[in-house]
């Protein structure tokens, strides 16, 4: 007669009991990582899963079996998110447009800052020609790449992670304006420092302020776009 090794019996005996609450918590987290699902949608789906599980338990299945069957019937979070996304394509595109505008804005500020710092640090020997290569590599290529990724829906993971960070719309807009102002100011300082090398013709009669504002025009356009495309914050209903 075959004798079962002792250590295998020990392993089988110490399997943790099924925790329904933990399973639901897991489900909640998986749903939360899908950007297409609003908090309201997620609540509805969780409720659905609970109803489904309860019904299967009534039919005689144990807690664990009922939960997993109900979960399978309800569908995988990824699939559900896709279905919900298809139903409201406008919401999905609005979100993507928001992120495209945010990316362009971020890159503009990055480009302004890096160019200005480069100019300030290089001193009077700053050469405008080498700047072109710098611009293409540091600005154009990454922007095109990022925009393409967002438009084709491949930056989903970034959107999920940042959604939690961007809590206040007003704060986001304010931060963006502040950053744009700072980088514009630095660009202007760099320009005025080395006017001859920078654009060929030194700007004599314009004040620091006007030049800064001028440099802020394009970033401001994108900040406005950002505000237009900001995803609506769904009202969170009172929890039972």
């Amino acid at each position, binding site marked *: 007669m075959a004798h079962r090794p002792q250590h295998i019996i020990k392993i089988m005996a110490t399997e943790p009991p099924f925790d329904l609450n933990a399973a639901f918590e897991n489900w909640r987290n998986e749903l939360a990582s899908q950007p297409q699902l609003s908090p*309201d949608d997620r*609540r509805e789906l969780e409720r659905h899963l609970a*109803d489904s599980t309860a019904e299967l338990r009534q039919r005689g299945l144990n807690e664990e079996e009922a939960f997993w069957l109900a979960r399978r019937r309800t569908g995988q979070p990824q699939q559900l998110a896709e*279905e*919900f996304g298809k*139903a409201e394509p406008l919401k999905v595109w609005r979100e993507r447009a928001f992120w495209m505008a945010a990316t362009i804005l971020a890159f503009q500020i990055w480009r302004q800052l890096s160019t200005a710092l480069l100019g300030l640090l290089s001193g009077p020997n700053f050469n405008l020609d080498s700047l072109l290569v710098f611009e293409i590599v540091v600005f154009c290529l990454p922007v095109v790449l990022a925009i393409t990724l967002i438009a084709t829906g491949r930056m989903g993971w970034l959107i999920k992670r940042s959604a939690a960070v961007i809590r206040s719309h007003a704060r986001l807009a304010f931060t963006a304006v502040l950053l744009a102002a700072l980088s514009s100011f630095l660009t202007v300082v760099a320009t005025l420092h080395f006017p001859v090398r920078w654009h060929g013709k030194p700007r004599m009669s314009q004040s620091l302020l006007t030049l800064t504002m001028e440099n802020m025009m394009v970033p401001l356009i994108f900040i406005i776009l950002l505000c237009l495309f900001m995803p609506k914050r769904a009202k969170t209903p009172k929890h039972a």
Partner: protein
Amino acid sequence: MLAKDLVAASSKPMVLSILAGGESYGYEIIQKVRELSGGHIEWSDGMLYPVLHRLEREGLIESEWRESETGRERKYYSLRREGRKALQNERQQWLTVHNTLSKLWQLNPLST
């Protein structure tokens, strides 16, 4: 198994009809469809909610979070007046299709 487009097209009149009988919630609606169709129509659970949300956006139904018998909140849907009109419209269309097919297949037509 029903063709995908047929399932999709029939979901609107079915949901509206079920809600015409009184308010309900997602899980209950799926159960009812499964019951009435003798198990032949099995809506995937995830499919129903986008339909409900679309109908709500179109102004045909409205929803409300209310306390269920178990104490936890649940989203209940009910038919609006516009929904009743839309249902009549759907009914006309489906019966037209049905009666035409019935004549072709030599079955008894249903009165509209």
